[in-house]
């Protein structure tokens, strides 16, 4: 299979920047990624986007945004799913020989978006919506299920560490942002901090310092009642496939950048993918050195940009250019991204220092 590398990355997390419209945010970020790759647009042969009409507020958002992302007279497509999934799809295009160098970009502008309304309308109009389901409520249900079985003695430490990591991340949202009301038993410090995010990656078949070593994807059933909210089999499945694709195991991963809605989801996801024993996820995220040094959703959150955001953070760590949150000696990283509805579909990517 063709080897794929990351040439350039860029990440912008802001809030309600009145000086720039959405296409400005996208253009600036993609331009930075192409510059970081040391390329010009003539060297780019395709563009793969992750954007959602209902986040962007248009019935076909890529009409306006695709050219801003560099798609003028180029092969371009758009996924209405998480950007790690778009990255995985772009991998298949390179591996198939359809493209040689690709921009992958994702964005979401929460300051002009109604996360609660969008999330509520993801659920079945007859059975899900009348009982008030939205994605945050599903995180609450997951946390309740966990609390029935396990002790949360490490919870305060986990919350405090998450906040410290986000505060130290030079790319995290500094001012503004939006927090929703926390449904029981989610705590205020575990909420995602909604932000305006644009993120871009240039990937190619030319060797660089960061290699894409593996990819895995999976999905869960739509109905919440049909899911195992604690075991998260689709997440586990995607991660296992990515690790197998890379010929490695979770024990050999020095960094995990995991996309999850809340701090509790971080901990329970860590359990699901085997980073921590069941019941010890909160303790793990409170103490583990290589877990979400970026701060996860506390550093800024808006789908469908999150998977690619995690991937950019991991790339910077592997390059040794993550700034104040740089970890020592990171050689291999695991990245995940999840999509609606309530983390129903998952993509996992394994990156390695080449």
């Amino acid at each position, binding site marked *: 299979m063709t080897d794929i590398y990351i040439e350039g990355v860029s990440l912008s997390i802001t809030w309600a920047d009145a000086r720039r419209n959405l296409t400005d945010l996208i253009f600036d970020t993609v331009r930075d990624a192409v510059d970081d790759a040391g390329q010009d647009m003539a060297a780019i042969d395709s563009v793969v986007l992750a954007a959602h009409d209902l986040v962007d507020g248009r019935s076909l958002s890529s009409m306006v945004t695709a050219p801003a992302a560099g*798609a003028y007279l180029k092969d371009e*497509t*758009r996924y209405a799913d998480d950007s790690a999934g778009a990255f995985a799809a772009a991998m*298949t295009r390179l591996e*198939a020989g359809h493209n040689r160098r690709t921009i992958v970009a994702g964005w979401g502008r929460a300051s002009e978006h109604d996360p609660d309304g969008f999330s509520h309308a993801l659920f079945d109009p007859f059975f899900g919506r009348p009982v008030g389901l939205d994605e945050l409520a599903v995180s609450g249900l997951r946390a309740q299920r966990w609390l029935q079985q396990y002790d949360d003695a490490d919870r305060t430490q986990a919350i405090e560490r998450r906040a410290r990591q986000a505060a130290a991340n030079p790319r995290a949202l500094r001012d503004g942002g939006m927090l929703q009301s926390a449904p029981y038993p989610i705590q205020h410090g575990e909420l995602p901090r909604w932000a305006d995010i644009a993120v871009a990656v240039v990937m190619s078949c030319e060797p660089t310092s960061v290699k894409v070593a593996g990819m895995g994807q999976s*999905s869960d059933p*739509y109905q919440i009642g049909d899911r195992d909210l604690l075991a998260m089999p689709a997440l586990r499945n995607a991660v296992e496939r990515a690790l197998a694709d890379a010929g490695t195991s979770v024990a050999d991963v020095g960094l995990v950048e995991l996309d999850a809605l809340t701090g509790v989801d971080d901990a329970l996801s860590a359990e699901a993918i085997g980073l921590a024993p069941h019941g010890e996820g909160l303790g793990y995220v409170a103490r583990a050195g290589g877990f979400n040094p970026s701060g996860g959703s506390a550093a800024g959150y808006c789908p469908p940009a999150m998977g690619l955001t995690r991937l950019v953070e991991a790339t910077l760590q592997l390059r040794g250019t993550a700034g104040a949150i740089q970890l020592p000696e990171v050689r291999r990283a695991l990245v995940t991204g999840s999509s609606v509805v309530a983390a129903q579909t998952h993509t996992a990517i394994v990156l390695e220092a080449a």
Partner: protein
Amino acid sequence: MSARLAIIGVGQTPYKRAHRDKSSSDLLWEAAREALDDAGLDITDVDVVIQGVAPDALSGENAVEKSAITGVGIPHMRVNTGGVTGSSAAFAGASYVASGRARAALVVAVERMGQSVTSQAAFNTIFDPILEKDFPLTTITMAALRASMSMRLYGYTPYHWAKIAQRNYRNALKNPLAHLHKEYTIEEIMNSPLLAWPIHKFEACPMSEGACAVVIANEDLAAARNPAWIQGIASTTDSYAMGDRFRREGATLVDLVTLRMSAERAYLDAGVTDPLHEIDVIELYSPFSSAEAMTYPALGLCEASEGPAFVDRQGEDPEMPFFNPSGGPQAGNPVSATALVRIAETALQVRGVAGERQRPDVRRALATGQGGATQFSTVCVLGTQRP
């Protein structure tokens, strides 16, 4: 194409104004089951599912495609590229198979616009809210701009638009899945209500619901079945701003430069050098008959200036490809699925299983996709010959 791929299964629901008795999940599964049965596969035999859904706003449900996922494990991805959603989804499935990460991909697209109180209100949010909101720009007036520009530049008349529409409606009479089954005279078409000059109602597409699915497989799976080999696929995106394209040299609003670029790349892969004589059947994603005329020069079938004469010769010149044996989008336009329907219909023709609408001796067929403000274009060439 770097790998040998084929379409080995096709499934479609009927297309109609609204499927009031079926959920989105029902429609997706109805088409998917038929495609899987046609391929002789089970859902567990496919390694990835690519779903195509365009505006969520039309259905009143967000991310309707997710409602059809019933089990754990198979990766699902949703593509949304507007009008080309269906073909973009097919190309995504082709990439997964060509990469070796999937032996077979199920591609399924659904449209639920019948649930919308007014689809135009949803469609109209595609335009710029600052610069275009006070300008009466809709998907219809957008097409009318191009039609009137074609008349001025190349000499098309309302008769040409009506003649193309008449042929599409006539072809649809043989397609039991088509939304509209009625033959019109040219006079009836030209005298139908004016939507936006020069476009009349019967030169436009209907609002349709329905789902379409195809199974794309690698050479190992395809060789033992009845395949439509994928000989060439290509996709190209243009600038959004129509004002920038009015006078762009060689690439005006009616030159469809992205369709031309896609056709050139797909022809190169397929080994097509004389499309007029090497392609037997063409399924065009042209929701207006005037838009269909713009595709002929972009696909290399004639010079732009010869377009009206090309339309005049249709039905009389046996050397020409046969256009839209299914009836095309004028006989049914489930927007999210329409570009996939074009691919599915050409696959049926190449496989020789298109029923009453089957054309004789189809060795190569072409399907187009068009989306946005004629901004996104796709071309897919299928054939009986393994590439």
